[in-house]
């Protein structure tokens, strides 16, 4: 049980280091408060909506590609079915969706040539989303009128659905801030291990009959415990600030733990490469902060350019942010975040194996 002794030692070293402790807990908390206040009233200026084309006529297609996007406040994407669109709505990826019924094209042609006809459009949105029920319904109605070049009769069938989500600023910030805390685990892991390597303490311990795997387990367990404490701490803070937790807390916890394992693995890689603490620290911050920004821990990824979003998708953190927001805020289940989970598991396993391999190699004679 040598690894257990090493685990206890690493834990003592960390909790007796108030600066490091403050850094792990106070730093993300500070960001949480600053961003919570700064972004409190600042909502995204445009709404993402989906369109389902059940008519599949040239007219309906042009309504989707040319008609709806005329409204500057709407960002339109195509959905394959109403069920898909509803799932996206529940995940919060879109704010509303329209279903264009069969016969829509014929009706528009008829109206344009002077024959009266009924124009129907189904609009589904979250009933609790006040902005949508007012603004989007109005906008869609206006655009349809213009598109068909008539005043009436237009029927926009509004379908408010209950997605149970009332997302406030703290709801949005808290899950991301936890990921930020777990991103800080990269420099933290790197620092703890590089320090022992740099000052020769690891060399001293290596003169005892301790195996490299016992050292790695001793470090990893300690760092994982720190991460778990961090996750619980920020979930508690979020809850205190009024964050609603709708989904399966255990599932969200699992996602966070996977992100933490990826961070610990990356920290080990840095510790294996860095010669000194002064080298390791700035190096890790250099990629941790940009990674935090592009992973959407503070801002929604929706407002970022597509190439940034593409880069962020390479790393596990954007997936973890998306998955935990979906789980905690919108009650998404296991299957809904399945692809994110697979990606996270792959990253966690890959990063920790690479870390073990590279850091383990520095310990071998």
């Amino acid at each position, binding site marked *: 049980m*040598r690894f257990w*002794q*090493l685990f206890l*030692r690493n834990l*003592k*070293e960390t909790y*007796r*280091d108030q600066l490091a402790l403050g850094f792990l807990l106070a730093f993300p908390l500070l960001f949480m408060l600053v961003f919570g206040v700064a972004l409190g009233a600042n909502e995204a200026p445009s709404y993402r909506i989906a369109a389902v084309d059940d008519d599949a006529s040239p007219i309906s297609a042009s309504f989707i590609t040319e008609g709806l996007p005329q409204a500057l406040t709407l960002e339109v994407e195509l959905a394959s079915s109403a069920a898909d669109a509803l799932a996206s709505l529940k995940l919060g990826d879109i704010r509303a969706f329209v279903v264009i019924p069969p016969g829509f094209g014929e009706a528009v042609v008829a109206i344009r040539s002077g024959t009266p006809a009924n124009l129907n459009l189904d609009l589904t949105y979250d009933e609790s989303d006040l902005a949508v029920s007012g603004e989007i319904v109005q906008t869609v109605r206006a655009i349809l009128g213009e598109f068909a070049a008539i005043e009436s009769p237009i029927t926009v069938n509004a379908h408010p659905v209950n997605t149970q989500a009332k997302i406030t600023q703290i709801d949005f910030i808290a899950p991301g801030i936890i990921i930020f805390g777990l991103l800080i685990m990269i420099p933290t892991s790197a620092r703890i291990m590089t320090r022992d390597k740099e*000052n*020769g*303490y690891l*060399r*001293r*311990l*290596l*003169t*005892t*009959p*301790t*195996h490299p795997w016992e050292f790695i387990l001793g470090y990893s367990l300690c760092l994982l415990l720190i991460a778990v404490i961090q996750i619980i701490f920020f979930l508690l803070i979020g809850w205190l600030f009024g964050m609603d937790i709708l989904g399966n807390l255990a599932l969200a916890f699992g996602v966070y733990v996977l992100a933490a394992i990826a961070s610990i693995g990356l920290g080990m890689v840095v510790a294996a490469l860095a010669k000194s603490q002064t080298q390791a620290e700035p190096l890790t911050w250099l990629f941790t902060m940009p990674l935090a920004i592009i992973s959407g821990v503070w801002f929604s990824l929706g407002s970022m350019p597509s190439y940034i979003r593409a880069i962020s998708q390479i790393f596990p953190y954007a997936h973890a942010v998306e998955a935990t927001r979906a789980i905690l805020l919108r009650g998404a289940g296991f299957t809904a975040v399945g692809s994110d989970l697979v990606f996270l598991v792959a990253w966690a396993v890959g990063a920790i194996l690479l870390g073990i391999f590279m850091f383990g190699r520095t310990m071998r*004679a």
Partner: protein
Amino acid sequence: MSDQAVRNLENSAAEAQRPGPACAVQTFNLTRAFGRLVAVDGISLSIKKGELFALLGPNGAGKTTVISLLCCLLKPTGGTAYVLGHDITKEPYEVKKLIGVSPQETTLSERLNPLENLELIARLHDLPKAKAHQWSCLLLETMGLSERARDQVRNFSGGMKRRLSLAMALIADPQILILDEPSLGLDPQARRAVWEYIEHLKGEKTILLTTHYMEEADYLSDRVGIIDQGRIVSLGSPSELKTRLLDTHTILVKGWNLTQNVIASLQQRYQGVKLEGNTLTVSDRHLDLHELIEQLRRDGASVRSAYFKESTLEDVFIKITGKELRA
């Protein structure tokens, strides 16, 4: 045993490549290269059980590399070594069970107290919890650190850290103690305390220490191996080395009227005559203090003090390598 006999023993052992039963540590053509730099260049030596062996050499001579090889922190690129019969290349964990090491950098777990530091090492050596605690307390007492047993060691002085480091090497009651520069960076008083403690362990344990302090090797060791550029250049007890290698004697003279005439007159008779400041250094194979003083008086100088300079290992080192140790 004479130096020649030891060498013969080592040679025959090197041929056989088998560790002798009386040896605690035996190296056979031990070599370690880092790229093109050969840090340890074919060292063959044996350290007997219970012996205090000092590896003496300047910084960069290869002392710490030898230690790292014996502690299985590095793999040799050639040759091997046996620690109590265990091959360092084949049974590193068996070797590590037998040794206690105090590395050159006094590295401790800074936010643990000395008791925790000691207990950790003890536990890593598989000592049961109660025993680890008991021995740790005992060693802290011996090292005079009991009063600070609950203070974090980052607040300790260099001397206290060094004593704790020594205690950490001892905690698992190893058969072989390896001390890399045990008094490096200590003030004379703290150094003396460390020396006294090491002296107290002599005979009880086999001790291998490295140092670049001549006095340390001179004061402590049974046998000294002088290492330079990765090779053992001379081997023997301190007094053996001095008598074998230093065939000239030196007298230091202080006085007045040490004029050019006086010096010229001395130079006719003695091999080495040098005046530095007001100290005259006279050296030759055969020297007689009375004769020298008599001659000085005759030449009109007045002598305030004159004495034989005791030869040191430093002189031995300069003689062998042609350079100063602390250069």
